[in-house]
């Protein structure tokens, strides 16, 4: 199998699930919902993505990693082989010239995600707006998705977790990865890593809607050719890199 992914079935299923969602909500409402902003649902009108400029990203800087860890609460136990890692800084070296560059790698939010294809329970999933998630409620911890991911973007939670963030439940025995800060996106915000890079570092990360030709990210993408990691696999990642091609 090379590039032949059958996405139509999944699309169809996602569509019918969204329809079923509309026909519910009976019952008496006594008090209004607390906050009705960003009420959703996620639709395929949007396709969220990132543009990472590795010519701006500096080697010693890990503000994006720190911001992610703080936002989502995945600080580890000083056990590098098993600790969760939702985003990591990677250094590349051109052996012929010795030139190096640095870039953050996280879940690439593929359009054809292999992690979703291999999941036996449907826990590994793609939202209508392209965000790839683990529905931990039905994750059985088999870790097939971790093996299927060519970017090594997913982690398994090996230990009991306490003091989680209210917006990011985490627990032993399930797989997790970058959610593109779905809780922020649903409230019209931007991912924590992008915010940190813009405010505290070199402004090397941009977030936006790849489907909207008027968005800043779409305009930037149209200016200059970008690279997607392992584009040869045909996974159509939502994360674009500049300066590594």
């Amino acid at each position, binding site marked *: 199998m090379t590039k032949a992914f059958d996405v139509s079935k999944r699309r169809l299923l996602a569509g019918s699930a969204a329809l079923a969602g509309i026909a519910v909500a009976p019952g008496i409402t006594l008090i209004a919902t607390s906050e009705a902003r960003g009420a*959703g649902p996620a639709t395929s009108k949007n396709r969220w993505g990132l543009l990472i400029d590795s010519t701006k990203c500096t080697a010693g800087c890990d503000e994006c990693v720190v911001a992610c860890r703080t936002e989502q609460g995945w600080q580890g136990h000083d056990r590098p082989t098993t600790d969760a890692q939702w985003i990591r800084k990677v250094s590349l070296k051109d052996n012929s010239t010795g030139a190096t560059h640095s870039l953050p790698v996280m879940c690439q939010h593929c359009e054809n995600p292999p992690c979703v294809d291999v999941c036996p329970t449907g826990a590994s999933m793609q*939202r209508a707006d392209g965000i790839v998630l683990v529905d931990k409620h039905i994750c059985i911890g088999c870790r097939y998705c971790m093996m299927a991911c060519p970017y090594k973007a997913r982690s398994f939670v090996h230990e009991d977790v306490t003091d*989680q963030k*209210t917006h990011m*439940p985490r627990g032993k025995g399930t797989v997790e990865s970058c959610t593109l800060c779905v809780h922020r996106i649903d409230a019209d915000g931007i991912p924590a890593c992008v915010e940190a890079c813009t405010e505290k570092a070199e402004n090397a990360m941009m977030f936006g809607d790849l489907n909207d030709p008027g968005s800043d990210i779409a305009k930037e993408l149209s200016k200059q050719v970008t690279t997607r990691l392992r584009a040869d696999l045909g996974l159509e990642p939502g994360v674009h890199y500049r300066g590594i091609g």
Partner: protein
Amino acid sequence: MRRFLGILVLALLTFSAAPGTLVSESMAGESRVPLPSPAKAFKGEQCVEPAAVMRREHMVYLQHQRDETVRDGIRGKKYSLKECVACHATASPKIADGSVRTLQPFCAECHAYAAVTIDCFACHTDKPDNSKSSAVLDDDALMAMIENHLKSPGNTELKQ
């Protein structure tokens, strides 16, 4: 069997909450049938549905909204687990000397009684964003606490 027990318990609870029944008169403590006494809500005047409905149906609402939120990105609806925590997490002298608000005195009180085990809080925190019971109360919660205090001498009755 467990299902049946649960329904029986719920029926009992609902019955006892109806004002004027014999059971509710004897609820103040001397009842011969021991009943769970979930802690009073930390804030809010009423639940997201009438309390009698919540007693029966909360697990259905939670599960439904869970799927809607995670899979379809629908947020801000009323049966959010995060919001249950915001209203129902209370401090108890039994937990960290009353210095943190958790869901234990509320959810666990009933579940222990009905032999229900839930795993939700292996992942979800049962502490609200500002969980310290002193110092960091927002105005809303403070007013609610004072009101609750004035209204209820016994804090344990299951009246609505």
